[in-house]
């Protein structure tokens, strides 16, 4: 193994061991990639690649018949599937937008000199760790029409609340709001980390110039927490496009198919035995994610340099 390498400066001759530097091959063997590599390849890479073939077939898991682009045509020909595609985009945009705005506001609030700051940070973050199914069930109860707590609370101030999850116009947005409730804690702690890393000097400079709170926010906090905004947008966009659990526990895509997203359609097609169609849905999701996230990464990277 050890070839005639030059003696190292740190070699201690009295130790009596070979004062040679083994090659990277022995010290950092590529074999270390093997366990992770095998699992990742078999469970993730192979299915991802095979999806592109199976998406073009009528498939029963045991045998598949090549049908060309039929699955994709079906996917976009059926109105409910088209709605699902649109819903996915709407959901991702709404949730990531709200997480940025609310996460930033909460981040600013929770880095200011507040009593109970630590407590509130914990309270805001905890839902991130609670299971999505539990959150989904709890909120479907809270959002029940008329008898649910949310509608009752609105009733007190004289507003008759809608049937949040039962009405085609509000179902998707209601689920998106619950998603924001559950996920805004992560956005907030990312913003807190970002805001804390802004050097104090900038704020002192604003103070010397006589700038107020708004000035501090607009010209220091907002531009300098850009890396945090970037992370929050990317993370919640990817999460939003893939969303399934919350939709499935709260509405199952209903009423009708008005709150279906791509991931819930994939599950429904899978349950119905249309494996090829389900896989086509997966490929569409894959293409949508890369088509949106990759340019988004590029765009946001460029902004980072200019701002």
């Amino acid at each position, binding site marked *: 193994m050890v070839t005639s390498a030059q003696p190292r400066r740190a070699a201690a001759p009295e130790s009596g061991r070979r004062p040679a530097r083994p090659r990277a091959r022995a010290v950092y063997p590529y074999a270390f990639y093997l366990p992770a590599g095998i699992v*990742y390849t*078999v469970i993730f890479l192979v299915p*991802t690649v095979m999806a592109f073939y199976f998406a073009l077939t009528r498939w029963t898991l045991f045998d598949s018949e090549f049908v060309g682009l039929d699955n994709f045509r079906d996917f976009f020909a059926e109105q409910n599937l088209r709605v699902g595609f649109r819903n996915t985009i709407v959901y991702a945009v709404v949730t990531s937008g709200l997480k940025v705005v609310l996460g930033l506001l909460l981040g600013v609030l929770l880095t200011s000199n507040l009593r109970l700051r630590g407590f509130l940070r914990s309270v805001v973050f905890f839902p991130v760790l609670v299971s999505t199914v539990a959150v989904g069930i709890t909120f479907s109860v809270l959002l029940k029409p008329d008898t649910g707590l949310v509608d009752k609370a609105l009733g007190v101030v004289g507003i008759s609340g809608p049937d949040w999850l039962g009405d085609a116009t509000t179902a998707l947005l209601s689920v998106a709001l619950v998603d924001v409730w559950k996920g805004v804690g992560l956005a907030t702690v990312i913003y807190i980390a970002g805001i804390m890393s802004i050097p104090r000097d900038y704020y002192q400079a604003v103070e010397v110039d006589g700038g107020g709170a708004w000035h501090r926010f607009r010209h220091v906090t907002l531009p300098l927490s850009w890396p945090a905004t970037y992370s929050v947008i*990317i993370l919640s966009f990817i999460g939003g496009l893939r969303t*399934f659990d919350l939709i499935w526990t709260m509405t199952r895509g209903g009423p009708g198919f008005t709150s279906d997203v791509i991931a819930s359609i994939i599950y429904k097609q899978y349950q119905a035995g249309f494996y090829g169609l389900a896989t086509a849905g997966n490929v569409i999701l894959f293409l949508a994610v890369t088509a949106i996230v990759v340019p988004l990464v590029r765009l946001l990277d460029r902004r980072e340099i200019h701002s």
Partner: protein
Amino acid sequence: MRTTVRRIGAETLALAVAAAVFLVPFSFMLLTAVKDEKQAADLDFAWPTSWPVVRNLVEVISARDYLLLTAYVNSTILTVTSVALLVVFASMAAFVLQRRPGRVAGVVNLLVLSGLIIPPAVVPTIWVLQGIGLFKTLPGLILVEVAYSLSFAMLLYRAFIAAIPRELDEAAMIDGCTGMALFFRVIFPLMRPVTITVILTTSVAVFNDFVNPLYFLPGDENATVQLTLYNFQSQYSTQWNLLFMDIVLITIPPLLAFVFFNRKIVAGMTAGAIKG
């Protein structure tokens, strides 16, 4: 002076609203879980008139032949095994990735990024699992959880390893430590902080996972806690106290992790996010 007062007022208001928005759902869960069946059906905020806590607890646990206990055992095995494998696999791979830059490392980095972005293709994964005889088995689901968490764990490890000086590797080499020995006797013990972070964040994620058990481990005998909760939803549509007792029971493990390791979890999640 007046602006200070107004500022404090506004902040108090913001605090009150935020606290209400985040605390009300949790208090609602707890309150409903300890009510009797009749009062729980009101689904309101009233103070419990009677406190059948133990009875609700026993009823939930013994329901459907102690399914919840089976589910707890399954979820524990799933979480512990997949996190243990993940820690070993991800730390080894990240070590070589960080220490040995080059073409191979370039490819691996690309794969790590793909793992973060690409949504997994579920039905083809079922096909693969069926091919190797692991579909609908706990080991199959464990491998799935490991595969899906690798990228995130490797990012955390890679960042941490970058801060471990190479001089240490060299010192160990002089003592004749290379490869496995160098990694497991010298480097791995040094990574304790990041290992704890990886363990905490992925344990919570795996324990709370709903989608993967739904696809890869259907059926009652292998149910995980999230699946049983989901199934209880239709079963207990009139016994809200039991449903919410179930929710409370399932929320306890993440709550404990949160109470004891809040800072670690937050640190891990923000680090992963910002480097991702």
